[in-house]
């Protein structure tokens, strides 16, 4: 099995509150252009090389959509 990425976002769970975007000190996350089946723009792991697995996005995420690996 391939190693998971540092940040794994369950896109169907995301409600698009954008708290993680503000929480990330390195601007790693972005909101999607697409919408998920509930009709929300979701958070995506965009600037992957800048991530250092600090977990702040996951700490603030209200909906437990984010898992972090190192």
């Amino acid at each position, binding site marked *: 099995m391939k190693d998971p990425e540092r940040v794994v976002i369950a896109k169907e*769970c995301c409600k698009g509150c954008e708290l993680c975007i503000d929480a990330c000190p390195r601007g790693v996350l972005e909101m999607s252009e697409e919408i998920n089946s509930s009709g929300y723009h979701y958070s995506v792991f965009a600037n992957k090389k800048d991530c250092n697995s600090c977990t702040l996005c996951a700490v603030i995420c*209200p909906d437990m959509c984010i898992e972090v690996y*190192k």
Partner: protein
Amino acid sequence: MKAVYERPRTLRDTPMHYCPGCGHSIIHKLLSQSIDELGIRERTIVVAPVGCSVLIYNYLDCDGSEAAHGRAQAVATGLKRARPECVVVSYQGDGDLAAIGTAETIHAANRGEKFSVIFVNNAIYGMTGGQMAPTTLAGQPTKTTPFGRDPKEIGPPLRMCELLSGLEAPAYIERVSVHDVKNVLRTKKAIKKALKNQIEGAGYSFVEVLSMCPTNWGMTTRQASSWIEENMIPYYPLGVYKDRGKERNAK
């Protein structure tokens, strides 16, 4: 790669019904993490209130009980006295704990019942559509105070931590917030401490968490976070109001 942040065991893998950016889900997560870390999932009973968090038993994989509106701490009293080995947590919102449940809260605190209370204060009635709560700030517009709460007419917002810390019995009272990462981490500490107090038999522990309600405040989540910082915290100062364990150690 190793997971450094994943879903706590106690938090069931189901989507929560809360609005985007609601603080409840964060607090659920922190409670679950604390329960996991203390290894008490098998003996934890969470008493759910009436309000947005009425469905908490769908999300936490531990025992639970629903209580009549405002009466969660009366139910918790019964549970704790019948099953002292269990860890009983009363999880309530401000429309529940600070309004219809004022009496139950004051008397449970005054009796020094040995359970933990998590009080989610978002300054509004969430589930019913944004009516004024006792904790609504002065000047804050709600469905029932469309021109803003007028303290001259309906009094100033009620501060539960201050009210309860005047009582003799409570062991631990703290006010925290979940509006940014730093404060989320502090909240986690406070919740864990409240549970630990109970395991050690220290007595009544009360954690008030200032929480966002972007939907009913009519704001984006971003605005809601700064609204807590700019408006709620000045009126509801964060910090420890009572810590008997610490006082005892100091002596």
